[in-house]
């Protein structure tokens, strides 16, 4: 086996194959490290979304002060060390439609679209609804910048639960929700896969996979030809996913200096136990950060629980024993509940801060921080939990997007500007040239003053 290590080195990053299949990723280690620093211009941009549920307590969330001289709120206080990396955006109206308030909020949050008709029944005045009617902003970005990495995007979740409107926020297109991976061990397996295959074995497995994928594509075409338009559309989605998997067999990653295989995660004893929530979340954030650092993907998302989350924050001090959603419906006058909700949202802010810490600590080949080349969006399906209002939904941006975003700012908008405008600006910051996103009449262009 003495020749093996040498061969592995010569393989370099090219052999980091998509792990979704037989998991062909080669060992990471030194073979994965770039031989020399690339020019600064070659550092890729990344995009990350983090979701937390059930609205916020706006008075305790909104900073005070001016655009460049502001004081963070109690809820955002855990982000103090990163204040210069943030843009806090207040005063936008989060568009959405169809189903109940939570449902339309989560469906429109990243798509800027309505929910289509469908059978998901909430407690709504508007009746039942289906999936969202458009692509989400992260997937639009992935379509532009995700083409060269082993995964075009990475969707992670923490105790998301049932596969329905309230548990899906990422969409590859109309009626195409993407599934978050909730098990850190599986996420790790998908990212880092098997190690130690010989180059010959890797080539053999890749050829096998290509052969299988090609033949299955042929069968999809043959079966589709005998079915009606609606059924064909379903199989087209399947075929698209297969093509995506096949195209990425040859993906080439450009890892940063801080890329290192973290090893298989040590899972908590139960993935479903309420009290495992923080531990699972930390593992997922660690994986998300290393996936970016290793350039396994350039677009990622993390979904904490789900819309109408019933998580109980037993680990806070003092413990919050009420289910989050029950608390979120307490009236403004209930100060004890407002305090609990403030502490819940503060805890989520601390998780966002942890993620920023990880990205700040990761060094690119040009010496910049991974965070400097990343754009993060932390958002919520609601503004206010007890009324389901989506006015002044809480948006926090972070990272400099390779210089496209000026950070250390607090922007306060008036007039219920649609959040679609924010989504347009995020696209522009990620070098996607557009002035519209989502439902056309909800979008009036980029968000003035952001970029």
């Amino acid at each position, binding site marked *: 086996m003495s020749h093996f290590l040498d061969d592995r080195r010569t393989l370099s990053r090219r052999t980091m194959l998509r792990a979704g299949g037989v998991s062909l990723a080669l060992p990471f280690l030194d073979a994965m490290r770039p031989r020399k620093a690339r020019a600064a211009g070659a550092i890729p941009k990344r995009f990350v979304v983090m979701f937390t549920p059930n609205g916020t307590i706006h008075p305790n969330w909104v900073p005070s002060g001016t655009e460049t001289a502001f004081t963070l709120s109690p809820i955002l206080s855990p982000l103090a060390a990163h204040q210069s990396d943030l843009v806090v955006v207040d005063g936008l109206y989060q568009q959405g439609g169809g189903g109940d308030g939570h449902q339309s909020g989560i469906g429109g949050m990243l798509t800027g679209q309505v929910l289509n008709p469908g059978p998901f029944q909430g*407690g709504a005045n508007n009746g039942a609804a289906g999936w969202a009617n458009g692509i989400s902003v992260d997937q639009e970005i992935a379509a532009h910048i995700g083409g060269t990495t082993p995964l075009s995007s990475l969707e992670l979740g923490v105790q998301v639960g049932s596969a329905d409107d309230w548990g899906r926020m990422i969409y590859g297109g109309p009626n195409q929700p993407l599934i978050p991976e909730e098990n850190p061990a599986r996420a790790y397996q998908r990212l880092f896969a098997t190690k130690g295959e010989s180059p010959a074995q890797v080539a053999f497995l890749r050829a096998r996979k290509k052969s299988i994928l090609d033949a299955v594509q042929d069968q999809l075409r043959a079966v589709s030809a005998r079915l009606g338009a609606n059924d064909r559309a379903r199989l087209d989605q399947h075929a698209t996913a297969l093509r995506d998997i096949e195209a990425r067999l040859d993906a080439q990653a450009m890892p940063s200096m801080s890329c290192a295989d973290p090893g298989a995660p040590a899972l908590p004893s139960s993935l479903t136990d309420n009290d495992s929530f923080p531990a699972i979340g930390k593992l997922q954030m660690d994986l998300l950060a290393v996936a970016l650092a290793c350039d396994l993907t350039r677009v990622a998302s993390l979904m904490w629980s789900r819309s109408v989350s019933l998580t109980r924050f037993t680990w806070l001090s003092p413990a919050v024993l009420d289910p989050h959603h029950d608390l979120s419906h307490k009236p403004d006058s209930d100060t004890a509940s407002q305090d609990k909700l403030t502490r819940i949202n503060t805890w989520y802010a601390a998780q966002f801060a942890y993620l920023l810490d990880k990205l700040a600590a990761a060094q690119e080949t040009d010496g910049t921080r991974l965070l400097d080349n990343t754009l993060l969006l932390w958002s919520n399906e609601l503004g206010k939990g007890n009324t389901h209002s989506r006015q002044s939904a809480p948006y926090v941006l972070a990272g400099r997007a390779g210089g496209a975003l000026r950070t250390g700012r607090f922007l306060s908008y008036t007039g219920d500007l649609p959040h679609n405008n924010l989504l347009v600006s995020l696209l522009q910051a990620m070098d996607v040239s557009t002035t519209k996103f989502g439902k056309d009449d909800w979008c009036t262009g980029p968000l003035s003053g952001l970029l």
Partner: protein
Amino acid sequence: MSTTSPGRPRTASGTALAWWVMAVGLGACSSGGGGTPKVDSGSPDTDVTPSAGPLCATRDPGPSPLRRLTDAEYAQTVHDLLGGDLLDVSRLPPGERALGFDNNADVISTSDLLVGAYEDLAEQAGGVVAGNLATYVPCSMSSPDAVCAAQFVTDFGGRAWRRPLDAGEQAALAAVFADGATAGGFAEGISRVTAVMMASPQFLYRGEPGAGPTADLAGAVALSPYELATRLSYLIWGTMPDAALFDAAANGRLATQADLARQTRRMLNDSRAHAVVSAFHAQWLGLDKLQGLDKDAVVYPTFTPALAAAFAQETNRFVDEVVWNREGTLAALLTAPYTFGDATLAAFYGLPAPTGGGFGLIQTGGTQRAGLLTQGAFLSVYGKANQSDPVHRGRFVRERLFCTTPPPPPQNIIIRPPDLDPRLTTRQRFDQHTIDPACSGCHELLDPIGFGFEHYDGIGRWRDMEGGQPVDGTGALSRTDVDGDFDGAVQLAGKLAQSTELQVCYATQWFRFGYGRGETDADACSLHDLATAFVAAKGDVRELVVALTQTDAFRYRRAGDLQ
């Protein structure tokens, strides 16, 4: 099966079933002003009002959206195909849930994560087959060649794709084998061709091109015998057809309603039917939520994962016993004075432990416990983390048992579950609903039913006292065909067991589960036939499954859906 005898010409029904009328009847409570911000209960429970469309006027098979194997069907099919649990099916992501069920074809979606998992599992299957050639490809022992591979494709492919392969498919798979054999020998060829069969849409999906127009129903396409065999096997067994069913398809013995009924009765006598009936009831009752169900350990220290698992096992065994060994009826599911449990569960209920140790039959006496709605599984799923939940228990009865959707809360009010107060009973704390006129209009539809469960706390434990005061478990049913007062859930269940509307709703739930979709206006005749058969059979669950195979929705599909 009085209404669906083979060949009987059907015309518009003159029988106005009360349930259609009733379905519209609840929409009357007020809601506040329009516009945002919107307010609602925020609960993701899924259920809809049955279509209040026309009575059976025009026969129509309704839509037949493309179905994909559910995770459970995939696992069982792979088990049957390979002869064991040989693949890591746990890596499939959870399937979509709508209307309570995991097989709704209208909301299936596809992503890289799912398709990647299918690909991996298909390659795993290839490895299993190639690693056991003597078992799976017997001819390879004497002549490992292309002829043997073609035989394997015919045999294995015919089962995996649930119909004989056509010449084009045979040729395509022969080419896959040949490429693999060139790259790595006979076993590699078999491995790849197996993987292709298992990753192809013919295996993963239930495409139904049909067998052409039928003289029985204009605008409809008859399903092919193999498509019907597949519908039967997944409806009744949740897995691929067996040899007898393939044989019936091959020999034209699935052509008539009588043929389908005969096969169904045969299949219902096979224990494979038990898993599907169990799955229906678990999903109908929402019992999948027991997995990982979260309770406040301070309020309910005795609620453990082990207790939740015992609850699930109890209800499962109970449904099995009622449907397969005893009364067989919906009424018995609601009222039977027995259940199953071990000594721990019996103690939880305050009942004598079953004889013989382990999990066994327990006589409940029928005073505190009788039927599904008095079991720990239902009561803890429909209980809050720290208290009982009369609103959602009442809503369950309206939505899942009567198939009616109560109107949502009015806008611009703040909904708040009352705080725990050690001096008051839950009922007293929820009285705000009936004091405040903004709430009372709708909550009068929910709370008087839900209060009937107040003798059971948030994990289903019996209580006579709460907050130092006696529990009041009286309640009332309104706007149903069994209206009236009752005292406690056992009496409530007794009234529910008399309800024709409830039988009709139960049949509608089976329609959704059995056909993998919500009902539409166009399904009025199929639903009418189904409900009428079930009522005529005095609520016999097995007869309802037979009736599911007799409808236009089951036997045909719309010609327009193939364009």
